[in-house]
């Protein structure tokens, strides 16, 4: 333990050199199974460190290696390179089988978020079955978003960081085909012409989404 004293002592006066900061981030990220956010890194490192800058260097160092640093929302984690997945058969976790309804609901939440239950049903043309939302919440792939400011103030759903981590996405903006879908108008909440539309949520749907995907 004597070796640990030095850097701590020194940090009272100045931040450790960048190379040392890189080592620290490397250790913290390696030890954690879950992504670690920048503020958390900063909180765990000695005073005066700049994890953002050190991270840039560290990420570069691991480019093309067997493990690399991925960004998940505002957090970072080491993950094995996807092309080596075949070596890891032993570690493969049995994935919970998702029903087709659950997968579609998940995709709709991801692409249309924040989205209400009524909107999901409108898109799928069928009631969301009991337990589907429940299951996705339990897997922590979706969570509650802000309530929609429309009559009834329905709850909305958005995807989680856990979801991004699972599918190797930096942010919901990186969903495959998002731009094309939006350009084709397929993410619009177009109400049925005339008066047959659901009373919920027409006006805010569009704004809610763009708000989320904006930088």
């Amino acid at each position, binding site marked *: 333990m004597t070796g640990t004293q030095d850097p701590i002592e020194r940090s009272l006066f100045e931040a450790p050199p960048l190379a040392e900061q890189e080592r620290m981030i490397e250790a913290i990220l*390696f*030890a*954690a*199974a*879950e992504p670690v956010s920048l503020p958390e890194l900063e909180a765990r490192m000695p005073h005066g460190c700049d994890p953002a800058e050190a991270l840039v260097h560290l990420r570069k160092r691991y480019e093309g290696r067997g493990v690399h640093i991925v960004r998940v929302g505002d957090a970072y*984690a*080491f*993950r*094995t*390179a*996807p092309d080596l*997945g075949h070596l*890891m058969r032993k*570690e*493969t*976790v049995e*994935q919970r*089988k*998702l029903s*087709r*309804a659950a*997968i*579609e609901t*998940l*995709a*709709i939440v*991801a*692409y249309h978020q924040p989205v209400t239950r009524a909107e999901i049903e409108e*898109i*799928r*043309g*069928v*009631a969301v079955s009991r337990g589907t939302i*429940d299951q996705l*919440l*339990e897997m*922590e792939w979706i*969570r*509650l978003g802000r309530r929609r400011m429309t009559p009834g103030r329905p709850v909305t759903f958005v995807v989680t960081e856990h979801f991004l*981590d*699972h*599918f*190797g*996405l930096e942010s919901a903006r990186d*969903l*495959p*085909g998002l731009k094309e*879908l939006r350009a*084709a108008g*397929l993410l619009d909440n*177009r109400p*049925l*012409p*005339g*008066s047959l539309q659901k009373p919920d949520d027409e006006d805010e749907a569009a704004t809610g989404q763009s708000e989320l995907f904006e930088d």
Partner: protein
Amino acid sequence: MSDEDWSADERLSPADRLSAEALIVDVDGYEGPLDLLLTLSRTQKVDLRRISILQLADQYMGFVERARALRIELAADYLVMAAWLAFLKSRLLLPPEPGEDGPTAEELAAHLAFQLERLQAMREAAARLMARDQLGRDFFARGLPEDVTRLRKITYGATLIDLMRAYARIRTKDEFRPFVMDRDHVFTMEQALDRMRGLIGYAGDWADLTSFLPDGWDSNPMRRRSSTAAHFAAVLEMAKRGQVELRQGETFAPIQLRRKEP
């Protein structure tokens, strides 16, 4: 679509689905009328944007007819869709009534086409999502997260589901009552009076006041005291009105009562 988790299955392939019977047998497999319409639309073998809604309406109604002929119960929403498509079809075929308000038949048809295209797009998006490299299948987190120090801090966790279930559990126990001070331990004199009026008709002989206390109010001391006091006050009131007679052998002895003969 190669992903095994993604069971966007064989029934989507039109080749396997040419016979109407196959469609009918699978009716349970459809996730609602829109899903069925999307499947039927594939037999047209055109871009969804150029789909013939008229033809689709015919296909759908044909399906519903055959289901009826085979005495298969269709859920209400399938029938609602059939009725709506019949309406749409008649609007598409007939010239618009002069002075008619509301959306044109073409607008309604275009909206249906949009819904089909959007559902199809979401299916494809879902398939692409599931085909991505996934954590725990294609790439991996640290298998041996390190817990180096002996410092052990206990944190208590709960998920949102836990929270909502807890609330649901409380709220289904009984309906929410606005806050009143433990009213369920209090028996009022009015209540006792109502009760005694009903009971006194049977009390021709002297009987202890305590035998009139309601069931379940003698187990808990607070409830016993409250109900005793309320019933005592009630019989005093009834004695005043000449409805009962009261007697007590000595101080603290049981109070007895009987109906006063008119």
